[in-house]
């Protein structure tokens, strides 16, 4: 998992290797048509013209609900707020294509010998939009807010707590965070962690908060609650990014203006607008040139393709969908997952068979026109260094599935077309799936058909899809009626999977545990893992383990599509791009 830094869009330097490995999916047993044949998406715009001096550009925020408008890194909760924040504010440290920190950003870093202390040095001339310099203590202030006993946001996570002295501060025992030291000239800040882990490189929090602007919670000038709802973060928020916020129509649009004192120099565009456009109208808005850059819902891909004045960019998303098999329970006392040996799906051969039975390729190709493709491992291809492209995992093969089931003793004894379990008892699985999106229901139906084809009777829990909240309520609570469920994880930018599959991870909804697993996950974040080859090897083993044990069966990886007007220049969605948001421009 990761910090809250979902890298979005151009600008912030998002280095990444290209995720083309999907084209060499080696898992197919029989040679199959390349699912993404004919899909050849660029990640950079093709327009190489000079940017206009004083261009104006409009971003679409594609959503059917308004954004919340909590424009602070510390307090926001919705992804759409982040889309706005990322246009006027930055992290001090930039990251590369692997989402690892670099020295390209507004600050540089050094890590101590013992890998426990990181020191950031802010460059000269990094200024907030109001002209005040960005101080080291502004970053300290972020930590003070995140760890504050009154803080009710959800960003107080492992990487924050890992700072020395943070638990005490968080419990209200001290006013100081002993692990953070700010230099007198306010240029340097060093953070010391309790545990050395490579996650520092991808998960460290480096977004400062303008203490002078929003007010100081530490002096009692303002309370956290007041701060959250303060106009300073809702009406006139400031950052130190290339554009500053001029005006906000709540929930609807934001107008930015160029920040002349941006630390990397004057940005290209005179002004930008981000506005909410509903998913139903987005193509129309792109076609009419009302918006220049917009993400395009996959189900509208075919129509988007035909729009002349735009160019489609695509990259693989930091997410995967999966089928989870309920194998145990969360033990609230011990705070760990406990497997149930009598679970309906305790036999891993059955789980493997179910994976074999699923025809994800058809879904990806037919339903998503290639914009989704079968997933193989639980570490997504975006993390190119860790994703094991050579891993062999089950792919659609009903015969293999049947064979496995036969082997496991699941055969149809009463001749109703469905298999009974190894003891000859009726075997019916309850399948929980989330509603939302037009394709949710056909996909669930499709999987059930796939399983039925190999003789496994699966029925929808309560005969219908469940709405998001009820779904997670039930999955989380290990609702005994649920045998399998379909979920999706956004992975964040940290490849470490222990938050989702660890013994003590509450999000490990399949409740799978295994000593080998514990071992590997621990090793993956140990100090030793700063050695990237070592870490790579550990994760390779882990991926293989997961493909063998199948606590969950990953189904598809997804592309995200972005429609960009052809007049836009210097825009890339490549995480590894050298382009910054300040370079973005329009040509005529």
């Amino acid at each position: 998992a990761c910090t809250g830094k979902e890298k979005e869009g151009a600008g912030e330097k998002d280095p990444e290797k290209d995720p083309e490995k999907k084209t060499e999916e080696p898992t197919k047993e029989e040679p199959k048509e390349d699912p993404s044949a004919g899909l050849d998406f660029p990640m950079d715009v093709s327009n190489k013209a000079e940017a206009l001096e004083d261009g104006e550009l409009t971003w679409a925020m594609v959503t059917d609900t308004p954004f919340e408008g909590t424009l602070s890194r510390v307090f926001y909760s919705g992804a759409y707020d982040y889309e706005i924040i990322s246009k006027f504010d930055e992290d001090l440290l930039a990251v590369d294509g692997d989402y690892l920190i670099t020295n390209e950003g507004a600050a540089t870093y050094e890590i101590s010998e013992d890998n426990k202390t990181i020191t950031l040095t802010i460059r000269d001339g990094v200024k907030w939009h109001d002209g005040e310099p960005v101080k080291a203590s502004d970053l300290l202030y972020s930590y003070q807010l995140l760890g504050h006993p009154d803080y009710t946001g959800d960003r107080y996570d492992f990487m924050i707590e890992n700072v020395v002295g943070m638990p005490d501060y968080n419990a209200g025992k001290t006013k100081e965070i002993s692990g953070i030291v700010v230099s007198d000239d306010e240029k340097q800040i060093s953070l010391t962690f309790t545990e050395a882990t490579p996650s520092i490189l991808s998960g460290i929090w480096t977004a400062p908060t303008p203490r002078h602007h929003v007010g100081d919670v530490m002096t009692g000038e303002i309370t956290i609650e007041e701060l959250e709802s303060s106009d300073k973060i809702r009406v006139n928020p400031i950052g130190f990014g290339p554009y500053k916020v001029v005006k906000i129509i709540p929930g609807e649009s934001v107008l930015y203006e160029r920040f002349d004192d941006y630390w990397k120099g004057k940005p290209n565009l005179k002004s930008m607008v981000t506005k909410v456009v509903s998913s139903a109208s987005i193509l129309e808005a792109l076609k009419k040139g009302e918006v220049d850059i917009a993400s395009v819902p996959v189900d509208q891909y075919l129509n988007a393709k035909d729009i002349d004045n735009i160019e489609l960019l695509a990259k693989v998303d930091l997410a995967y969908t999966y089928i989870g098999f309920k194998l145990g329970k969360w033990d609230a006392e011990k705070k760990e997952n406990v497997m149930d040996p009598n679970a309906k799906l305790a036999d891993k051969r059955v789980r493997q068979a179910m994976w074999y039975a699923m025809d994800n390729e058809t879904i990806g190709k037919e339903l998503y026109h290639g914009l989704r493709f079968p997933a193989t491992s639980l570490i997504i291809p975006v993390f190119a260094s860790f994703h094991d492209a050579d891993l062999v995992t089950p792919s659609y093969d009903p015969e293999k599935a049947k064979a496995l089931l036969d082997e496991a003793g699941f055969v149809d004894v009463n001749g109703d077309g469905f298999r009974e379990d190894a003891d000859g008892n009726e075997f019916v699985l309850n399948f929980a799936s989330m509603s939302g999106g037009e394709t949710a229901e056909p996909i669930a139906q499709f999987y059930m058909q796939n399983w039925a084809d190999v003789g496994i009777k699966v029925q929808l829990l309560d005969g219908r899809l469940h709405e998001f909240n009820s779904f997670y309520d039930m999955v989380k609570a290990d609702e005994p009626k649920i045998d399998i469920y379909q979920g999706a994880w956004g992975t964040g930018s940290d490849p470490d999977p222990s938050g989702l599959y660890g013994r003590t991870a509450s999000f490990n909804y399949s409740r799978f545990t295994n000593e080998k697993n514990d071992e590997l996950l621990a090793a993956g974040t140990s100090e030793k893992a700063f050695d990237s080859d070592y870490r790579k090897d550990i994760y390779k083993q882990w991926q293989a383990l997961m493909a063998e044990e199948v606590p969950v069966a990953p189904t598809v990886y997804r592309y995200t599509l972005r429609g960009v007007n052809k007049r836009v220049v210097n825009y890339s969605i490549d995480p590894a791009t050298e382009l910054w948001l300040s370079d973005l421009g329009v040509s005529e």
Partner: protein
Amino acid sequence: MTNPVIDEKRLIAQEKLNNPSFMRTIWREIKHDKMALGSLILLTIIVLAAYISPLLIDSASLTRVNFLNVWKPPSAANWLGTDDGGRDVFGQLMIGTRNSLTIGVAVTLIAGMIGLTYGLISGYYGGAVDNIMMRILEFLMVLPSLMFIIVFVTIVPNYNKYTFILIMSAFYWFAKARLIRSRALQERELDYINASKTLGTPSWKIMFFEMFPNLSSLVIVNMTLSLAGNIGIETGLTFLGFGLPAGTPSLGTLISFARNPDIIKNKWWSWLPAALLILVMMLCINYVGQAVKRASDARQRLA
């Protein structure tokens, strides 16, 4: 020295004139109105088709997803093309019509029963009982019902056709209760109610066996007209995402395909037939309802 309201009396008398044969009067009125007659015939055809065809359609194959066959335009195999899961729209239209009709009729009946009972009791007793019951009703009418329905829908653990009917019914009887009550209040002043009281007939019997039959034409008219509204009752909710679960085809689920311009224009077969069907049914019921209404009011009658 006649009573001051003799004219009105005559009207009542005239209304009662057709009471015993209200059904026949309705039929006469419908026969007389070509529009209503046509509507009734069309409606009968639709209802028969909706309730008979599902017996002929293999519903398992209808729900079977086939991604190789999505969004196919109408053809001989799929009269109305296929939807996003490659499923036959025509079959869904038939089953959907049946579901929507069932829901419409059930909600109309249940809400009608509740409203009728509530209104009758309130109107029959009048006075303090009426006062309290009306305060409650006023309160209920103030509730933003759509919001409440949405909240209920999210709460109900096992949400299906039947719970949907119950939720809807729970919010659709208020106006009926008010209407019935106001008529019951008038009716209780009439002497036949007093007569029954002086003859020692128990209250509940008076309410349901004396008063109710006299309100029946009102009830029938109101029910027919609200049936028209209730047929499309789930479409809006479905559109908002709080309708029937996907997989329970209804006219609403079909119409709700019309969510984006691409489908509106290029995949019209998925939503347009359902939208037209609903329109046609509502218009038909409305025309029949208007005829029924005229039948109940001697002044407006055509036949």
